[in-house]
């Protein structure tokens, strides 16, 4: 699974992406957040405030209940501020 991080989430984790083999019990974006949080202090800090998180699966906005599987491109970012 390709996982991308943007803005302050990228800064807290210290990199812009991961390429990870995700265990089968990770079925949703919410599961993925929980699994990533255990990977280190930077991840824990990035995902501490779930209300501040927005996410996309395969480049479409989704909510945390959306399913994920290896082969997906998943992205985490704060609320967007373009324009």
């Amino acid at each position, binding site marked *: 699974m390709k996982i991308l991080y*943007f*803005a302050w989430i990228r800064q807290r984790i210290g990199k812009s992406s991961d390429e990870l083999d995700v265990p089968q019990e990770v079925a949703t974006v919410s599961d993925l957040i929980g699994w990533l949080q255990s990977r280190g202090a930077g991840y824990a800090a990035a995902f501490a405030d779930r209300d501040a998180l927005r996410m996309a699966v395969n*480049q*479409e906005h989704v909510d945390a209940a959306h399913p994920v599987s290896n082969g997906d491109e998943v992205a985490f*970012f704060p*609320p967007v*501020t*373009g324009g």
Partner: protein
Amino acid sequence: MIRVQREDFDLAVEIAALTGGRPGIGGVVSFTGLVRDFSTGKQVSAMTLEHYPGMTEKELARIDAEACARWPLEACLVIHRYGRLQPGEQIMAVVTASAHRQAAFEAAEFLVDWLKTKAPFWKLEAGEQGDSWVEAQASDDEAAARWEKP
């Protein structure tokens, strides 16, 4: 039509290209967003726009298609820049053209409102107190919600 680019753009050139050869256009509306030198009480010396290459283009294309589906537009353009910009520089523009003004005005407002809440861009402001990420505004969500279909 949508474009995501680092370079600046010339709105007059863009409008001329968009309207050329389309004599059915009776009105053109454009909106240009600029980098301000202030933000909630602090000075801003520069702004860096980060985006999600790939998804940005898809989201803008989706928003552009939605505008064309809702209003009788003859032409439509969204340009959004990324990278480091100085106060006064252009960030983005939308241009809408239609036979009559109302569709062009409404579609332009819709495009800006929707891209502010849907297109994956993030602004990092540099100032005297260091760098800070711009926070999303509830007023932007409210502006976008006006266009949700019942």
